[in-house]
C-alpha cells in the first residue's frame, strides 16, 4: 500500500470540505429554483435530483417533437386497463354527459366542469409520441383543452408549484410541476386521431403530458388540485408512482 503523504491528506481534506460546502449551497439553490423532485429522499434520491434538475435547466420551455399525419400509428396500443366498474359503465351509457372535472386547491374560484364545457373551451391538437416506460411506443393525434387554459379559468395562484390530478381509478393519481402544467402541449385530452377519445385510451378525459412517459398521461381524469405544497399528498412523494416504486419524474 502506498502511504498518503501529509500534503495529500491536507489536499484531500480541503477538497472534501469544499465539495461538502458546494453540495450544501447547491442543495439550497436547487430547492429555491424548484429543481428537487418530491421523491428526492432515499437511496436513489441523488440520481433523481440530478436528472430532474438537469432536465429542468435544459427543457423548461422545450416542445416535444411533433410528427406528420402520415406517421400516426395505424394500430395504437391502449395498454391494459383494470375493470372500471358499474359506476363508470353508467356514465358511459349516458354518453359521459354527467362526467365532471373538479378543480380546486390554490385557485381564485374552485369549479366543476362538465365534459361539454371542456369541449367548448379552446382546443389544441398535436401529433406526438407516447412512450411506455417498458419500451414500446406509438404516435397519435391528441385533441383537448390546454391544462394552462383551465388553470387560467379557475385563477390558479402564481405561487402554485404543482398540479395534482386524480383518476376515476382512485389508485392512480399523479402530479406535474408548473413547467409541465403550463406547457402549451399539456392537454386535458378528449379527442384522439380525429374522433372522441376511446375509453381504452382514457376516454372521456385523459391528461396528456408530452415530455414524459405514458404513466404521467393518466386516464379518466376527474379532479385537479393546484398546490404549493406537493408533500401534503399521499405519502409525500409527489404521486402514486413513487409509492409503487416508480420515479415521480418520468422525462427519461
Amino acid at each position, binding site marked *: *500500500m*502506498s*502511504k498518503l503523504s501529509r500534503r495529500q491528506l491536507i489536499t484531500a481534506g480541503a477538497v472534501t470540505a469544499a465539495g461538502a460546502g458546494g453540495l450544501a449551497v447547491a442543495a439550497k439553490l436547487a430547492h429555491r429554483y424548484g429543481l428537487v423532485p418530491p421523491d428526492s429522499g432515499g437511496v*436513489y434520491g*441523488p*440520481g*433523481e435530483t*440530478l*436528472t430532474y434538475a438537469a*432536465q429542468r435547466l*435544459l*427543457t423548461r420551455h*422545450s*416542445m*416535444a*417533437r411533433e*410528427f406528420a399525419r402520415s*406517421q400516426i*400509428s395505424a*394500430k*395504437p*396500443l391502449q*395498454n*391494459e386497463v383494470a375493470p372500471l366498474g358499474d359506476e363508470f359503465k353508467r356514465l358511459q351509457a349516458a354518453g359521459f354527459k354527467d362526467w365532471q372535472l373538479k378543480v380546486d386547491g390554490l385557485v381564485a374560484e374552485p369549479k366543476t366542469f362538465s365534459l361539454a364545457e371542456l369541449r367548448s373551451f379552446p382546443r389544441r391538437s398535436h401529433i406526438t*409520441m407516447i*412512450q*411506455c*416506460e*417498458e*419500451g*414500446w*411506443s*406509438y*404516435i397519435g393525434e391528441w385533441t383537448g383543452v390546454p391544462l394552462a387554459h383551465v388553470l387560467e379559468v379557475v385563477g390558479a395562484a402564481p405561487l402554485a408549484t404543482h398540479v395534482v390530478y386524480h383518476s376515476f381509478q382512485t389508485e392512480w393519481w399523479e402530479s406535474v410541476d408548473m413547467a409541465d402544467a403550463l406547457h402549451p402541449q399539456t392537454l386535458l385530452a378528449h379527442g384522439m386521431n380525429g374522433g372522441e377519445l376511446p375509453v381504452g385510451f382514457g376516454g372521456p378525459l385523459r391528461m396528456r403530458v*408530452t*415530455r*414524459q*412517459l405514458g404513466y404521467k398521461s393518466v386516464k379518466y381524469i376527474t379532479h385537479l388540485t393546484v398546490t404549493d405544497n406537493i408533500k401534503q399528498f399521499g405519502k409525500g412523494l409527489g404521486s402514486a408512482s413513487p409509492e*409503487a*416504486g*416508480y*420515479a415521480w419524474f418520468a*422525462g*427519461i
Partner: protein
Amino acid sequence: MTEASERHSFLVRLTHWLTTLAFLALLVSGLELVVSHPRFYWGEVGNVNTQPLFQIPIPSSRSLVPTGYGYTLPDQNGWSRYLHFQSAWLLVLTGLLYVGVGLFRGHFRHALVPARSELSAKRLMSSVVEHLRFKRPVPEEAWSYNVLQRISYLLVVFLAFPLIIWTGLAMSPSFVSAFPAAVNLLGGQQSARTLHFFLTGALVLFLLVHVLMVILAGFWTRVRAMITGRATARKEGV
C-alpha cells in the same frame, strides 16, 4: 513510493472501479428493463401491434407481450429505472473526470495512443496472432499496454461509451424535446433503443475479453496493480 513508479495513477484506479460499479449496475438494471418488453424495433415507434426487428426468446414481466411462455415474471421496473439512471450519472461524471484529467495530464497520449510504428499491418497482425494463441505477456508488459489493448481501450472510452450515453439520452422524451437532433440523427426513438441494446452487447463483449486477458496475464497481480497502483513484474522480470 513515488508516483512515477506507480503502474496506474490514483485517478485511473479510482475511475476504473467507479466505472466498473456503474457499468455492472447499468447492465443488471438494463437487462431487467428489457424483460418488460424483450422486443426490438427500428424507426420511430414499435409495440406489440407492430412487427419487431427481433424478439429475445425470454419470458416477460408484462402479460401484454406475446412470449409463448405461460407465465409472467414479477415487475421490477421501478427500482431498475431508479438504479439505471443513478448509475448513468455515476458513469457520466466518472467518465468526465477521467477524460478531463486524462487530457490535461496527457494520459491518453502517453499511455493509450499507439506509436506509429506499432500500427503497421505486420506489427498489428503479430499482436493479433499472439492474442489468439493466448500467449502470456512478457513481464515488461505489466508496465505498459500492448497495441491491441491501446486500440480497444480508446474505442471503448471515445466511441462505445459516448454512443451508449447518446442512444440512452435519445430515448428520453424530455431530453429530445430540447435536442431533437439527438434522436432524429439515429432514425427514431426505437432505433435508439435498439442501438443502445447492441452497444451494451459490444461493451459486455469487451468486458469478457478484458477479464479473460487479465486472467491470462495473472489475475491477482493485475488486479492488485489496479487497486494499489503497484506492479511487481519489474522486479520479478529482472
